[in-house]
């Protein structure tokens, strides 16, 4: 029985994880992840990138991954706390939560909003992890049969969806993606040994580390952007968490259906090779708004709890779903997943079907630690809400200065080289200008990490086929993925052209 085998594997995983030491790692991970994630402007991807150095001294990858499971969930939850209380979402997936959540907080209902977000995250996380548990091995078994053209098509689809579906302009999104691809190409070519695009800088021969790119773009870029505007924007008002801290019976009655609907939307979107949590969170928001009746209908726009419960569950479910392609196929479909790949690489591990064959103990310990991290998050964060609110009160100038110091520390401790720190600063300046001119940042990260993989599969395909491009179309699976990629590119453009022709307002 396959189901029994999975349960046996999972129990082994729990046996590894449930030691006092590892439970302590999980708790530290959740606390650190939430602490950093709560800081305004810091999303889950940057949270993980900044906290990577902590695990360098771990001899066993297991403890490190247990901590990362905590950091992953904590970073995500911390982000939603900030969006609700401060209305400054650290990443696009928290935007939908912020809409109603911030309105609730304004009306003195921050407590129930945070509680609904926390319990919704827990419900969605638990269902998502259960699905991951039972999907992981079958998908990995299928993934073993994938050929280079299939992998190439998967990367193309991931690129297209993150570029076309996120951000406001396709041209700018594509430019970001190609900048990422360029960064990914820098260094020694694995096949021919040729040094490529290093512009004479020797340190670039090993390529540009993804941690460097993420920290530069997210931390330094964002900090410089905040600095450039600090004199024009006053302090954001932090809303107090007053009154009830938990859900009343009525709040619960209104929340549980949105939690489940959000999960049902979030997980499949996250688990597909297109990835991403933005679409399901907005779909969930729209669904809840349409389904709202009576009091809830009146409250939408002024702080309806359904509008927090649904998107937050969708966000968490999508984040869990993203782990399916990451662990089973080795394809990261979000910026956060790309940074997680870097965490694996620290321990010389490559996620993908081979990992299930070579390191089954580690994989199952990782999956078990997701359950632990999720429970830990609920247990620690509901009582600690007031502490996280205090974190939000750190003055902006100290926070920005600290982020820059930590960004430098992170890169210096990864590389031990001042040159790499300087390269990170250059990427940070690039990130600043990208924010100023409204270029999306996530495609750069994905391009830099998936670009080399895409190139390898592309060249492998053409080497086997002796340069015949028809080889890409001989695999039915690859063809389906290419068609999906073309649709993802064409449909939004076509829709906006139709709107323009009908005079329904220009939107690029």
């Amino acid at each position, binding site marked *: 029985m396959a189901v029994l085998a999975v349960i046996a594997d999972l129990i082994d995983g729990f046996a590894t994880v449930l030691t006092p030491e590892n439970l302590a790692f999980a708790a530290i991970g959740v606390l650190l992840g939430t602490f950093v994630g709560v800081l305004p402007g810091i999303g889950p991807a940057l949270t993980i990138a900044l906290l990577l*150095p*902590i695990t*360098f*001294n771990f001899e066993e990858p297991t403890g490190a991954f247990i901590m990362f499971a905590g950091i992953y969930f904590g970073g995500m939850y911390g982000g939603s706390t900030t969006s609700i209380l401060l209305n400054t979402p650290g990443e696009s997936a928290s935007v939908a939560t912020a809409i109603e959540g911030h309105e609730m907080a304004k009306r003195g209902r921050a407590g129930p909003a945070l509680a609904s977000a926390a319990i919704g995250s827990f419900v969605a996380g638990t269902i998502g992890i259960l699905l991951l548990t039972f999907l992981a091995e079958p998908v990995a078994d299928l993934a073993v049969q994938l050929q280079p053209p299939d992998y190439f098509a998967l990367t193309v689809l991931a690129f297209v969806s993150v570029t076309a579906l996120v951000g*406001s*302009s396709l*041209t*700018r999104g*594509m*430019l970001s993606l*190609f900048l990422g*691809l*360029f960064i990914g*190409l820098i260094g020694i*070519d694995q*096949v*021919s*040994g*040729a*040094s*490529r*695009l290093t*512009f004479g800088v020797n340190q670039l021969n090993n390529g540009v580390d993804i941690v460097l790119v993420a920290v530069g773009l997210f931390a*330094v870029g964002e*900090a*410089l952007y905040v*600095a*450039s*505007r*600090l*004199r*024009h*924007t006053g302090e954001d008002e932090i809303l107090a968490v007053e009154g009830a801290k938990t859900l009343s019976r009525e709040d619960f009655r209104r929340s549980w259906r949105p939690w489940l609907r959000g999960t049902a939307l979030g997980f499949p979107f996250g688990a597909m090779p297109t990835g991403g949590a933005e679409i399901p969170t907005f779909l969930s928001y729209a669904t809840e708004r349409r389904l709202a009746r009576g009091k809830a209908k009146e409250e939408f726009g002024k702080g309806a709890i359904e509008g927090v419960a649904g998107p937050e569950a969708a966000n968490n479910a999508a984040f869990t779903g993203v782990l399916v392609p990451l662990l089973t196929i080795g394809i990261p479909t979000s910026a956060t997943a790309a940074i997680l790949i870097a965490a694996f690489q620290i321990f010389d591990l490559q996620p993908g079907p081979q990992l299930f064959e070579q390191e089954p103990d580690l994989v199952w310990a990782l999956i078990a630690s997701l359950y632990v991290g999720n429970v830990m998050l609920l247990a620690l964060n509901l009582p600690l809400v007031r502490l996280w609110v205090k974190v939000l009160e750190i*003055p902006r*100038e*100290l926070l*920005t*200065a*600290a982020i*820059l*110091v930590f960004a*430098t*520390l992170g890169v210096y*401790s990864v590389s031990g080289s*001042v040159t790499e*720190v*300087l390269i990170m*600063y250059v990427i940070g*300046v690039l990130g*600043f200008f990208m924010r*100023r*001119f*409204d270029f999306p940042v996530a495609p750069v990260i994905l391009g830099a990490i998936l670009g080399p993989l895409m*190139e390898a599969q*592309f*060249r492998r395909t*053409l080497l086997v086929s002796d*340069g015949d*491009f028809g080889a890409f179309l001989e695999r039915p699976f690859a063809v389906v993925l290419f068609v999906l990629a073309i649709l993802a590119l064409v449909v939004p453009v076509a829709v906006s052209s139709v709107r323009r022709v009908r005079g329904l307002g*220009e939107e690029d």
Partner: protein
Amino acid sequence: MKQSWTGPRLAGAFLLAASVAILIAVTSISGRGGYATSGPRFVPLLVAIGLLALSALYLARTFIRPDVALAERSAQEDAATHWATPGLIMAVLLAYAFLLEPIGYPLATAAVFIAIARLLGSRSIVRDAIVGLVLGFGMFTAFTQYLGVSLPAGLTPIF
């Protein structure tokens, strides 16, 4: 609404110039295989051409069928941007990178923290100094003693 094309045009020109530089760098890649589809130059060539075409398109859209939303956003950004602050912060960070090893992590970090906080408008130097020193020495101790990462001690009078 006010529109500003200077920013987007400069950005487009920069991207175009960078794309040309990358394209030239692609032609100087050596190694067996060259431009063959399985060789080291083929994919970089595609990426460089893609960058060039997209940069040209981006620049063109500031003249032909202009992207009005971009220009309006750009005008708002221009009004809100205080260029000196990020510029000075970058200067402090560059100094940090070069002084990190000679001065040592704890003191350099404290100095940089105070300087950046001040650039961002903080006026309580005592508080900033305390936080900066705690941060510098705290991180130094945590990383070198407990996390097994070596950081430069420089002039630090401990350990």
